[in-house]
Structures are given as structure tokens and as C-alpha cells.
């Protein structure tokens, strides 16, 4: 070949006039060797050593992100918007304090569940084992689930251990304990009805009878944590009247307390408790909520009570979740950001430079997903924490939320995970479709449509929609169990993570096979 120019040496940069070329230290030797063989000593890079690591790749992607000012601003705006929406939500929320019973939100019961511990309780201390018998002669109330009967409980504390044997207008006799379980039911039993509740050690057993002679066992429960001296007495409860109006875009719930009145006779407590024999006391907490008891005779009483006992059916607002609703705005911004992060590379051909620097498609995808997920996740968690810290104290009374509550903390950190996962999902979708607008639509629709539709669909359909679509991930923000809760927080997030993993795997397969 004649390509070699005799005159060309290490100093050839001179005829270019402009910048000097960085030449290797050994440049002079090369010129001298030019006579041998092919006449050329191949150049060797001064930076040939080492291998680019994944850490460098992460730094590369992070540099890409932080060096586009409008991306950083978008992320900040997402955080600010999320907090602002929380403040507006908190400011505009007017909560009617429910009259029915109390709200034992910090009662130590399972954190996910709100419980109710209302109704009226007229009791005597019961030292050790014993037996309580009474006849419910009359029960009037508007609710099918109004309750009148006998109760043994640990003490006055809200949400404490109890067992209640109650007759209801619509559902027979049941033995109920705790806030999640029913120990026994006799659906056909109706008022008037004899009830008997016995305590033997930790075991409480309920019986019912139509005549006070032939008893049938309803069930029995093991009450751990029942003190030696428990409280035993009469109990009346009536759940709130609730109207739920579901429509597209939301729901409206009206909840009003109701009252029930029951008359008891033949009330016998054995053994009669010593000095205080015959001294019946009203439960202080339920008096405050409008309960009352009237003694009609030596063993006959009339009780009025409002509020219910047991698991809250979940019509109450999830105030923490409402505060975090602003994360939707953050989510839209994060999706747009994630899509542009990769989409702009495809649009401008920069992806070729990316792949030229890092031929491994999987490494590039992993680095991008890590950086985007971390950035979006951090923004989400910071925004959610700020929303709760700033707007939480503005809520009144029972709706107040604080980061120290387990479920709220989970919802806040979960918002970070949610945004991180959605960012990675958006990245994967972009790698698949390579078109920014299409990718944004493809990510946002399945996330937002189920939420929009949920209010207008039958409850059952709405629940399945929120279990099976990526929108399930929003479950991580729920802090109380409601009547329309479709899926548990972590299970919901796992559904979203599943979608993300599948999309990412498909994106990887596509990237490997397709021309850049």
C-alpha cells in the first residue's frame, strides 16, 4: 500500500493549525520504526488499562440526569406539588366527628385495622371464675346488627380484651370476641331469649335458651390477657347508619349514629361480688357517648347504647392516604421524566453513543433503571414525608396522621417505592415502544384508569380492577382497612413490581435483538 506518507510524523498536527493532538509518550519511537514491516507501529491507548465498571455506568446515568436542568426542576416540582396538594387537602377537610362511640385508633389493636369499641356496658367486677345469666326481653333499634346481651371484658380500656354474647334483631345470637372474630352463632335464635356467659380460667363460654331451662352452647373463646378480676355485665350496642354513594371520581359516605334500647330481666351474677354486691356501674366511656342504664327492679334493667363493638367496617376516611393523594401529580411527572430520560436518547440518536460506550444492553438498562428508580423513589419518599409532616398536624382529631404510626410510615416510604417502581416501569415501556408520547400513555392509562373507574363500577369489579392492574401498587398508601379495600399494601406493591419485572425483561430481550 502506498498510503504512508514519508513526511508525516508525530508533529503533523502543525498543518492543522488549531489544537495540538495529545500524542502518546512513545510517539517519537513510532516515527523511527516506520521503515519496518508494514511501516507502522499501531497506536496504543494511554487509557487501555482497566475495565469500565457498573459503578462508572451508574455515575454516567446520574450525570446524564443531573445535567439536564429541566429534568431536575421537574422532579423538584413534583415534590413541591405533592406537598402542596396535601396542604390543600388538609386545609379543606372538614370532618364531622362521629358521635357513635369513640375512635380508638391508638388502642394497640392491629395497626392496619380500625376498631370500634362503643355501645353501653353496665357491669360489676367479677373476681375469678363465675357465671352471668340474664334474659333479653325486648330489643328495639333501627339496625339489623343492633346488639343486646352479656359481656365479660378485661377493663375499661378501649379496644381491650372482651367476649360478648349478644342477641340481634336480624342475625340471631352470636358470641363475639376481639375485633376480627366471631366464636359462634345461632342464627335462628330470637328475642326474647335467655343468655348465659361463664368464665373458667381464661375460657369464656356462651349459651342461649328460649326458656331458661334447656341451654344450647353458642361457642367458647380463649381470652388470653383476661385479668383475674374481670368486668361482667349487660351490653347494648347499635352500629352507625351508613350511606355510601359511589360514583366516578369518588364516593360520598354519610354516617350517623343510631341507638338501641334493650330490656333485661332475671339478671344474675354468680358468685355475687362481695361488698359491692348489687352495685352496678356504668362504663364511663360509653356514658359520655350517650349511653344510659335504668334499673327497673332488683334484677331488671333498661339500657340504651349507641355505637358498635368489633372491627370497623371501614367507612371512615383513610386520612393519611388522602394526604398522599398528591403523589399522583408526582407520579405523572415521574413517568414523563422516566420516559424522556430514555426516549430523548432514542430520538436524538444518543442511544448509539450510550451503546458504543457500553455495548452490553443489559448493563445499560440496569444502570438506567437503578438511577431512575433511586431518583424517583427518593423524591417520592421525601414528598410523602413532607406532606405528612406539614399537612398531618392540620387535620383535626381522629383524622390526624403522624409519621410515628407504623402504617403511616409504611405508606410514606411505600410512596417512594411506588414512584421508583413506576419510573422503572416507564423506562421499560419506553425501551419497548421507543416513542415518548406513546410510552407516557401506555404507562399512565393502566395506572390511573382503574382509580378513575373504581368509583363508578360495581364494588366487586372495582376491587378486581385494583387487584390485577398495575394500579394495585397504590395499595401501599392505604393505612386503614376500608370496606372497599381491594388488596393488602405489600401484595398490591408486589403486583406492580411483577408488571415492572415483566416489562423490564421484555425490554431487555427487545434491546438485545433490535438495532439501536
Amino acid at each position: 500500500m502506498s498510503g504512508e506518507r514519508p513526511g508525516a510524523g508525530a508533529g503533523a498536527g502543525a498543518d492543522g493549525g488549531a489544537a495540538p493532538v495529545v500524542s502518546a509518550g512513545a510517539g517519537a519511537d513510532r516515527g523511527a520504526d516506520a521503515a519496518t514491516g508494514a511501516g507502522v507501529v499501531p497506536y496504543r491507548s494511554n487509557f487501555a488499562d482497566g475495565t469500565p465498571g457498573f459503578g462508572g455506568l451508574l455515575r454516567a446515568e446520574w450525570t446524564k440526569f443531573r445535567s439536564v436542568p429541566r429534568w431536575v426542576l421537574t422532579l423538584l416540582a413534583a415534590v413541591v406539588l405533592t406537598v402542596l396538594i396535601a396542604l390543600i387537602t388538609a386545609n379543606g377537610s372538614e370532618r364531622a366527628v362521629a358521635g357513635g362511640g369513640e375512635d380508638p385508633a391508638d388502642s394497640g389493636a392491629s395497626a392496619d385495622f380500625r376498631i370500634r369499641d362503643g355501645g353501653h356496658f353496665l357491669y360489676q367486677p367479677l373476681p375469678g371464675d363465675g357465671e352471668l345469666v340474664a334474659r333479653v326481653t325486648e330489643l328495639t333499634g333501627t339496625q339489623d346488627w343492633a346488639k343486646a346481651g352479656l359481656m365479660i371484658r378485661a377493663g375499661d380500656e378501649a379496644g381491650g380484651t372482651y367476649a360478648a354474647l349478644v342477641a340481634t334483631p336480624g342475625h340471631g345470637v352470636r358470641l363475639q370476641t376481639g375485633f376480627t372474630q366471631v366464636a359462634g352463632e345461632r342464627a335462628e335464635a330470637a328475642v326474647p331469649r335467655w343468655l348465659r356467659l361463664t368464665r373458667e380460667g381464661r375460657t369464656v363460654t356462651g349459651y342461649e335458651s328460649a326458656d331458661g331451662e334447656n341451654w344450647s352452647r353458642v361457642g367458647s373463646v380463649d381470652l388470653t390477657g383476661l385479668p383475674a378480676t374481670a368486668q361482667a355485665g349487660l351490653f347494648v350496642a347499635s352500629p352507625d347508619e351508613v350511606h355510601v354513594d359511589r360514583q366516578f371520581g369518588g364516593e360520598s359516605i354519610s354516617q350517623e349514629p343510631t341507638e338501641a334500647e334493650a330490656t333485661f330481666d332475671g339478671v344474675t351474677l354468680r358468685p355475687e361480688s362481695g361488698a359491692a354486691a348489687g352495685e352496678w356501674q356504668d362504663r364511663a366511656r360509653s356514658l359520655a357517648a350517650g349511653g344510659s342504664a335504668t334499673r327497673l327492679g332488683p334484677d331488671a334493667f333498661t339500657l340504651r347504647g349507641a355505637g358498635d363493638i368489633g372491627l370497623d367496617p371501614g367507612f371512615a376516611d383513610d386520612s393519611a392516604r388522602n394526604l398522599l393523594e398528591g403523589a399522583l401529580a408526582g407520579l405523572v411527572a415521574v413517568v414523563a421524566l422516566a420516559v424522556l430520560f430514555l426516549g430523548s436518547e432514542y430520538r436524538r440518536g444518543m442511544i448509539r453513543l450510550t451503546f458504543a460506550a457500553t455495548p452490553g444492553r443489559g448493563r445499560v438498562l440496569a444502570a438506567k433503571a437503578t438511577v431512575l428508580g433511586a431518583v424517583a423513589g427518593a423524591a417520592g419518599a421525601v414528598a410523602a414525608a413532607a406532606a405528612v409532616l406539614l399537612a398531618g398536624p392540620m387535620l383535626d382529631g381522629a383524622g390526624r396522621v403522624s409519621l410515628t404510626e407504623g402504617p403511616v410510615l409504611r405508606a410514606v416510604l411505600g410512596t417512594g417505592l411506588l414512584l421508583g417502581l413506576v419510573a422503572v416501569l416507564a423506562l421499560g415501556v419506553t425501551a419497548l415502544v421507543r416513542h415518548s408520547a406513546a410510552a407516557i400513555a401506555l404507562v399512565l392509562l393502566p395506572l390511573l384508569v382503574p382509580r378513575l373507574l373504581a368509583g363508578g363500577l360495581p364494588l366487586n369489579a372495582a376491587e378486581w380492577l385494583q387487584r390485577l392492574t398495575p394500579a394495585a401498587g397504590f395499595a401501599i398508601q392505604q393505612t386503614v382497612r376500608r370496606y372497599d379495600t381491594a388488596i393488602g399494601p405489600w401484595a398490591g406493591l408486589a403486583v406492580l413490581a411483577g408488571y415492572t419485572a415483566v416489562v423490564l425483561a421484555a425490554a431487555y430481550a427487545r434491546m438485545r435483538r433490535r438495532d439501536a
Partner: protein
Amino acid sequence: MSLEATIDVRGLRKRYGPTVAVDGLTFTVRPGQVTGFVGPNGAGKSTTLRLILGLDRPDEGAALIGGRPYGHLRKPLSEVGAMLDASAAHPARSARHHLLWLAHAGGLPARRVTEVLDQVGLASAARRAVGGFSLGMRQRLGIAGALLGDPPVLIFDEPVNGLDPEGVRWIRGLLRSLAAEGRAVLVSSHLMSELEDSADHLLVLGRGRLLTDTGVRELLDAASGGHTRLRTRDRGRAMAVLARAGARVASLDADTLTVSGLPAERIVELLGEHRVPFTELAGHRASLEEAYMELTRDAADYRAAGQRAEDGS
């Protein structure tokens, strides 16, 4: 053949749908040379470069760098530097950050960014957003990216596009000096004239096929083809004398002739013998452009056929 600092393309073939973009290409790019990669737009130059860089997957054949496919290079940016598309940078990103992410990804020290920015003359614009750059500045930025890893193999796709005359001069010098250091430099262009004075070797591509693989000097020699230009006051006698000696003579104007078929020394001899006066005798040197036309005349049938096919479609 050296294992290092070469590009080996063997039987490369790539089809996009019904269009064959690259059709059985085989060539080698050697170190210490500037290899021009020439052909009209759509000839398959950019496709070939993408195949070399492992960006597109060939249907057949292979492109190897120092004996290995691009995807198997241990530290790609320090083995091959490429500028494919000068606008492949986010417009809101500064030149410095554009090179910085590339350095991080390539496992290169951040100081290289400053070095290459100096080298291409963009030091003063380092912190400006790329969106405000002229095409010439973008070309320089793209070249800076290619130089970042100090690689022994360099690939530039149409680097002269959009450069002002000063920039064109600069890039010619740069290409020459890079090759002089022992690097293999592959430069594509759709204009042969752009490679004048910088390329040592030429690969001429037409519709996905390699038309010529030749040294620039050989090409020029062949194209000049022993033409001699003669200026004389006595045109008639000169023509007669030379024609009798077996030369082909053509008249350019009143006192200029082109002579072919006789070496210049013999022409001088003959004119001296016959006392024909002449004022100038010059070996005619073809320009690269002329050589290219000469060269592709052979492929004219093919080109014409291609043209027809294109018109017909």
C-alpha cells in the same frame, strides 16, 4: 496483519426490510493511515459504521476490531472512538457534562474531558448548553467524544459537514496527525473533494457494494494516465510530429495540446529533433474528484441501472 488497531470487515451484509443496505462488504482499515470511506448518500456508509460499532446486527458476515467484535471489547472507548452523529447530544446538557457521562461510562478519568475539549478547541464553550452550538461546534464536540478514550481506531462519519473553511483545514490536520501516531482512521464522506489532501486510502462504496479499495496515490496515477499538456506556438507541426510517433493528441485551445500515449521525455526528444518550439510541458495531475469520476465511470452501467431502478420504484 496486525491484530491491533485494525478494522476488519468480512462479508458484511445487512438488509432493512426489502432494502439491502450493505451487500457483502469486505475490507480492512489499517493503522497509520487515513482511510476515506466514500460513496453517495444512501450507499451504505453509515450502516456499515453502525455494524462495525455493534449498534446494528449484521445479517451475514462480521466486523472485527483488532480481531474481536465490538461487543466483546473490554474497554470500548479506549479501543474505538466514533463520531456517528454530531447532533447526538441532549440540547440542554453542557458540552462538559456530555463528555463527562461518556467518560464515566467508558471508565475514563474526568480530566480527559478537559483535555479533549482543549484539543478540539471547545474549552471556552465547555459550560454552554449544546443546544446553542453551531453545527461546526457540534462536529468538534462529536470528535472530542471520539478522542476521549485515546483510542487506536477512530471512526468519523461525515466530520467535515457544516465546518467553515478554517474548520475544514483543522480537521484535515487532525486526521493526518492521528494517523501519523499510528492510529487507524476511517472517515466517511459523500464528497470525494473533502478527502483531498487527507486520505491515504480509499474505499468507494456504491449501493452497498465496495467499488474500489485502493491507495489514493495509485488512484491518482491511474487517473492521470500519462497525460501531458503541451503549450506551443506551432500547434500544427507539433501535432503532426507527435501523431507520427504514435501519440494521441488533442487540441485544447489555440496553443495547448494534451498528449497521451508517450512519456514526457520522449515528447521533449521528438520536439527537439524536429525543432518545434514549445513554452511549457507539464504532466497533468488529476484531482481526486476527476479520479473518482474516472473510477466510477466503470461502474456507470451499474449506476445507470441503479438510477433506473430508483426512478421506477
